[in-house]
């Protein structure tokens, strides 16, 4: 990735309708390192599909999507997976494996993509857990955790491992109020080291406190992605 190159760039990207259900219209978006783009979208599933599109999981009929200067469509499986490992993601649903404890679910991407010592991964995940109000890392399986604890665990998992891009689906309805400030602090800290943020929100209330720090504001509708005025 060259200096001053966009971190994530959608250039007239037209997603396959059969695969995604997204409107086959050209989508354009450009996020530079350290920038925060807020995407207003009332439909959770559409937001998740757009997040998948940005992660190179949906084939395109036209245009291109580049992450860290690399076009998703030109990469092979191993490269795709390695690049996706640079993305920290909060998903609203279906993202927890009940085969493992929540602590392993949190550390799984980091353990899979890096060779960092296990103790160091545990330490950094535990520190993040403390920030989000956990006494340590939850070891029970995800299906035994409350919605609030799962939302906190999702935050820990997204921020652990210093990702280059954060793709955050809206969990403001389940994240406890006392965790909103740590969430915004962690997001700001990540941006300070060059991480881009793609933040999906359902309502203005979810990002109201962070409004001044947002660089791009767009709305994802049935018809496509439309820029909004940033206040």
């Amino acid at each position, binding site marked *: 990735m060259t200096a001053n190159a966009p971190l994530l760039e959608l250039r007239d990207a037209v997603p396959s309708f059969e695969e995604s259900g997204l409107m086959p219209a050209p989508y354009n978006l450009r996020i530079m390192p350290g920038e925060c783009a807020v995407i207003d979208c009332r439909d959770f599933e559409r937001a998740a599909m757009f997040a998948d599109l940005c992660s190179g999981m949906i084939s395109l009929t036209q245009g291109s999507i580049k992450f860290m200067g690399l076009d998703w469509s030109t990469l092979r499986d191993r490269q795709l997976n390695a690049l996706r490992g640079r993305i920290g993601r909060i998903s609203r649903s279906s993202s927890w494996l009940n*085969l493992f404890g929540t602590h392993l679910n949190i550390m799984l991407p980091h*353990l899979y993509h890096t060779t960092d010592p296990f103790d160091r991964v545990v330490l950094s995940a535990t520190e993040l857990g403390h920030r989000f109000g956990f006494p340590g890392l939850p070891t029970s399986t995800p299906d035994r955790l409350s919605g609030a604890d799962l939302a906190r665990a999702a935050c820990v998992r997204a921020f652990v491992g210093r990702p280059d891009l954060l793709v955050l689906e809206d969990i403001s309805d389940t994240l406890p109020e006392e965790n909103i400030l740590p969430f915004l602090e962690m997001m700001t800290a990540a941006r300070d080291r060059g991480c881009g943020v793609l933040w999906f929100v359902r309502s203005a209330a979810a990002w109201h406190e962070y409004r001044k720090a947002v660089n791009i504001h767009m709305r994802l509708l049935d018809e496509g992605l439309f820029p909004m005025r940033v206040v």
Partner: protein
Amino acid sequence: MTDTPPLAPDHTAPQTNPFSGPQPDDAGRFVHLLRRFAPWLAAIGRLTRHQIRFTLLVIGAGWGTIRESLRPNSWRRPVIYEFRASLRQVVSGGFLSIVVTATLTGLMVVSQAAYWLGFAGMAQMTGSILVSVLVREISPILVGIILMGRSGMLSLTEIGMMVLGGEVRALQARGIDPFLALVMPRTFAFTLGGFTLGMIFAVVSLLMGFVIAHSTGAITTSVWTFFFNVLAAMTTWDYLIIPLKFVLVGFFVGLGSCISGLTVSSNDTMATIMPRGFARGIMLVLVVNVLFMLDF
């Protein structure tokens, strides 16, 4: 004056529809026959394609599993963790069933073989009969069926539900390859588990058979002589073929379960996934055994 344009002279000529009904000429008869049998042919074709698809999937995935396992960076920490967890499940989950089944099988086969061979004055053949019937033929099939029932169905259901629930897609979104994270470690856990359980089965069935036959007087030799006779009856090939059968049965049961789970469609439910997976698993167990029977 009307808006309807006049028809061209060739449009007014009477039209014949080849699909409208039986025709007196050969072409018409052929079309009629085709119409009658087309749905049947389509159904047979669909079924054949479906069956070949799974066979090709198993061959491709089997090759992929072996190739990926040879790359050092395929064995990442979550993959190793999954391998250990699966191996623990396969061996500990199947252990009791294997011991009970082996005891019952040994009771039936060893005692009956010893009794009837002794009755026929062919007691010296007891070892070779037991090796060829019990250890080489029956054990791999029973071990495969137990592996399938105790652990294969579990893997199939887990992975199938993960696909339907979107968890596998969530793994992919985080850059975790489900083939590396789920299929490869589980397949090798089944392979190792198949060998382990197979060896336990062989030893327990022979031992329990000896105990029963000895207690009823059908066998009068010591346990060491009995096992010596069994080992002496084994050829060099048997030392290779018997473990290989256990290994391959485990490999294909594991692979078949994982692949069946990973390829479920959105229309599938538990009611369709489980019978299909079980039938495929049994088929794979029998195919492995039949192939060995043909060649050796």
